[in-house]
């Protein structure tokens, strides 16, 4: 198969404030009273994975770990359960960052599906090890929804970086 170069936009530098804002939004979404609806997408995981892929130098394992601890405390889960899964998720996202962005959006989403499923499996393994019952197959639905949201997430979270630069009439080129 012949290599076809696709046009890639040169993005503006990311604003750390915006990254923090999106992570806070995802956390807020996760803390909404969902009344034990199984199969809700874990947006914190999705946004962490997104920034882990796009900004591997800023979002690394440590920040993911911190968000995991916050999720654990807020949900009354075993302390460290989300942190464990998110740390692995961030590591995988960082490792994939050089490769993944060469793909179109939907193949990217397919990659992320397995990354997110992997982190859910890790959490499941931890909980089964600590003696919890299997929560049902619907538990994995969240990852599929998250992966399906990947193109939308890309569009929304990269929008500030895709703004046109200030138009300068006097510029020669």
């Amino acid at each position, binding site marked *: 198969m012949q290599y076809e170069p696709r046009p890639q936009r040169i993005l503006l530098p990311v604003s750390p404030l915006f990254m923090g804002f999106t992570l806070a939004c995802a956390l807020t979404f*996760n803390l909404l009273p969902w009344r034990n609806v199984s199969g809700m997408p874990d947006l914190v995981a999705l946004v962490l994975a997104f920034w882990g892929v796009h900004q591997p130098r800023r979002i690394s*394992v440590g920040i993911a770990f911190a968000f995991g601890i916050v999720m654990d405390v807020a949900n009354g889960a075993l302390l*460290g359960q989300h942190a*464990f899964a998110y740390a692995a998720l961030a590591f995988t996202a960082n490792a994939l960052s050089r490769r993944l962005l060469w793909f179109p959006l939907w193949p990217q989403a397919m990659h992320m599906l397995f990354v997110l499923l992997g982190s859910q499996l890790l959490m499941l393994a931890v909980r089964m090890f600590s003696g919890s019952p299997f929560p049902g197959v619907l538990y994995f639905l969240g990852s599929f929804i998250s992966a399906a949201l990947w193109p939308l997430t890309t569009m929304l979270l990269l929008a500030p970086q895709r703004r046109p630069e200030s138009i300068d009439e006097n510029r020669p080129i």
Partner: protein
Amino acid sequence: MDRQPPPFFNRGPAPLVRLSFFMLLAILLMVLDMRFRAAETLRTGLAVVIYPLQRATGAPVELLSSIADYFSSLSSAQRENEALRTRVLQSARDVLTLEALASENAHLRRLLEARERVPGGASLAEIMYSGRDPFSRKIVLDKGSQQGLLSGQPVIDETGVIGQVTRVFPMLSEVTLITDKDQAIPLQVVRNGLRALAYGDGATLDLRFVAANADIQNGDVLVTSGIDGIYPAGLPVARVSRVERDAAYAFARIQCVPIAGTERHRQVLVLAHDAKLPAAPEAQPQQAARAPKGRRTKKRE
């Protein structure tokens, strides 16, 4: 060749090192939390820090529900009023007899020199949200140790027991529902007074260690037996939904459906458990010496 790379290239420890460090830290935290309950201070501190965020997330939901309340029509309010009126009338007779029975009961108990059952206080709390963790059944209430809640208090709604306060933060508290896997509750069958112990099973309750020939039928109502000193006796808990008797096992498999639901209402009642238990019997000196090796002594006996 001891030249340092310029700080421009310095990216800290390698990713794999970082991952191993944080995963080990997570495992350490989990072990501390699960086996030793040693991470409670950290948990409480973090809970205070994220409290404003939790309150903020609750706000839009509260707004929506208050808007819905506002638009609920007058007729439905009137209908509800009517229904409540009839219920008050119906229960009036019970209340009247209850007073007589209570005084009679107190008298009899005094005669028996038994301790009087003091009705403890109760405080109303609202459910802020239910935990998102699919492995445990927990809800978070909007009151905490600042409002005088204590770990271990039973939580009920108007139909029955929903759970027990298991963790108290300054402003919030966590309630483990009776359907949680780690939650056990001592019960009694209303029909014949048979006592049993129910364990949570995700969505239902599991009545364990009941002999295969025990007299339990489908539809039996189970209430708290009160012998644990935590739950007051006589609160409805569950209804038997399935009884399986297998000759191969010594115990019957009994599944029960909880009567109270956390999905219906936002308000719950947290009961104060100031039940005065009789003092524990004086241990025999010999037994006291053996006490630390509890398991072995059981086997020997």
